[in-house]
């Protein structure tokens, strides 16, 4: 920080800083980190967006679908014989193989929880034609219950870190170090988003999802199996959350903690709303924008404002442009 600014701050004893110099000097570092984090937000946001598009339901428990994936990742590493502590030395092939295994486990676990949630909690409500608030309260209850179950099983503390992929600097842009991990996170997020987009827009099941999102009753009349479409939607959202969990654990190996989903979930939801909820491209854009804004905001205002930045973005968007940046919904996307 510039000495003059430091002096001014200590003199006035102000509780918020405007460190423009810090923002400028750390800009590119924060850009790299923001994009890597934004990819994770985007993948979780896709789950919110898909379910919202089809059911007009905020799946409040999606954050727990995600966090189950982080535990699955950790357990896979543990089952493979790795123990917390010093970083193991592995060949590239081994790293890729083990990470793929963990990814499959995480996606399976998250997908299972998402589909289970739909079966146990949401389907009975749909059959009873319950109002929307009942869905939301049920989702809150489910979120609470999964969190507490994880707490009872794994305890209050984070699972000690096991890390297979050691970040290695690859190159620099404008002085900011870019590691192999940053590249993997960014590319994987975009790739998975392409897959999801292809699935929704180009496949038969995807057409069903769009049809139900547009008009559930007509879609049913036209022969679309609505229940099946809903299960598939939850499954896809869960699989993406599981993948996000693996990437998150690559970035933050201490990430498996019972209540770790809440903040990430809120932020991913913010990303979904920011881009335009119900819109797949919006989720990707919103994820990256939020990842960047959050990191820039910390440099500007100080580290303790990290979470407030996300909450303020959420409120501003919901109040002034609830349709988000891109605005179109899943149902209205090109058919």
């Amino acid at each position, binding site marked *: 920080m510039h000495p003059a600014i430091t002096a001014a701050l200590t003199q006035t*004893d102000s*509780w*918020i800083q405007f460190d423009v110099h810090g923002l400028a000097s750390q800009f590119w570092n924060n850009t790299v980190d923001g994009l890597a984090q934004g990819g994770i937000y985007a993948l979780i946001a896709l789950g919110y967006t898909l379910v919202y598009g089809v059911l*007009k*339901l*905020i799946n409040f428990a999606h954050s727990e679908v995600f966090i189950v994936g982080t535990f699955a990742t950790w357990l896979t590493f543990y089952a493979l014989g790795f123990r917390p502590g010093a970083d193991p030395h592995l060949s590239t092939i081994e790293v890729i193989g083990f990470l793929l295994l963990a990814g499959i486990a995480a996606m399976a676990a998250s997908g299972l929880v998402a589909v289970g949630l739909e079966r*146990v*909690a949401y389907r*009975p*409500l749909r059959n*009873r*034609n*319950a*109002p*929307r*608030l*009942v869905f*939301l*309260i*049920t989702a*809150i*209850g*489910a*979120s*609470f*219950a*999964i*969190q*507490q*179950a994880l707490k*009872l099983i794994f305890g209050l503390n984070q699972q000690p870190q096991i890390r297979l992929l050691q970040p290695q600097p690859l190159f620099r842009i404008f002085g900011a170090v870019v590691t192999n991990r940053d590249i993997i996170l960014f590319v994987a997020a975009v790739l998975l988003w392409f897959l999801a987009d292809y699935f929704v827009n180009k496949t038969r099941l995807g057409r069903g999802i769009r049809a139900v999102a547009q008009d559930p009753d007509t879609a049913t009349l036209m022969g679309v199996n609505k229940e099946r479409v809903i299960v598939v939607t939850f499954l896809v959202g869960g699989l993406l959350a599981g993948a996000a969990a693996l990437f998150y654990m690559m970035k933050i190996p201490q990430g498996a903690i019972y209540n770790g989903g*809440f903040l990430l979930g*809120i932020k991913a*939801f913010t990303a979904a709303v920011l881009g335009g909820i119900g819109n797949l491209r919006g989720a990707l854009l919103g994820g990256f924008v939020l990842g960047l804004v959050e990191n820039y905001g910390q440099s500007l205002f100080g580290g*303790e*404002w990290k*979470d*407030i930045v996300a*909450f*303020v973005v*959420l*409120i501003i968007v*919901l*109040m002034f442009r*609830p349709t988000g940046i891109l605005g179109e919904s899943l149902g209205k996307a090109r058919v």
Partner: protein
Amino acid sequence: MNIRERWNNLSRPAQWAFLIPVVVLVYFLPVLNPPILATSGTDFPSAMFDVARYALVAVGLNVVVGQAGLLDLGYVGFFAVGAYVAALFTSPNSSLHKLPYLWTLPLAMVVTMIFGIILGTPTLRLRGDYLAIVTLGFGEIIRLLADNVTPLRGQSGFERVGTNNAGQPFFENATQWYWFTVTIIVIVLLLVGNLERSRVGRAWVAIREDEDVAEIMGVSTYKFKIWAFVIGAAIGGLSGALYAGRLGFVNNQSFDVVTSMLFLAAVVLGGAGNKVGVLLGAVVVAYLPLRFVQIADYNYLIFGIALIVLMIFRPQGLLGARQRLLAKGRQAYQHLIGRGEQVSGESALAEPGGNQ
């Protein structure tokens, strides 16, 4: 005829004749210290105060969630504002002018009402689940601000809240705090009950049941939603100030989102829209974990599962809301059908066919 109908058929004096002994019994609970009810790990009067505090919060949140049907996930924010108002004006840690503790109670209500207007004016244009998420965001922002804004002292907090200049607390022991809180609950219940039977209360029910229809029928929905939000906020602020006075210490640790969820669970479990129901819900949420310490590890898990099960099988909660749409309902019903009003057994959360 079920119990509730029988109750409704009683005349007012008969209802009072039953209620007054119940209220007296409630007052004497901490003195009686009944062996089966008494808590082991926590001092019983202190536990009873905690229950009373939750009950007051539940009554306040019920106005917002149960009466007007606005799902507020950030209610703990108002509770926090009330607690901080009491702390700022009574604690020696604060540089503000010191006031007698009793004055801070109405002050806390006024300040939280202003907060309610500030938060409600923009947010109440949103509906349903968007409103829920925005209130959640506001609740978290209030907690984080208490942490980041230096004059609010973060986790260091304010000590000796509610003491006078001589350093004496407002009440000496938990039993007195309990009596004071129960008295306030009775007064608040009477006021809220009157409000429910008034034009405002009918407007709320109309909004809760179908906002669009209410609007078309000439109910100024936005105005009445703000009313509900503000009145709920005031009661939340009041309970926050009581909590601060009893505890004598306020920091940012008690206003997290889990607390907000517990408040909501109290209302929804007991029966949103039903005053007796939410009191029951508050007792369930606040008392059972203190009484059965052996299940303390599991209580949140149990509440979470209970919420799911309840929403599927009994969305109106343990005791459902009553549809009191007539100003002088009893007389009207007795005139028409010779007995008290009928019970619909439904609530905001259980309207049939309320598809989206």
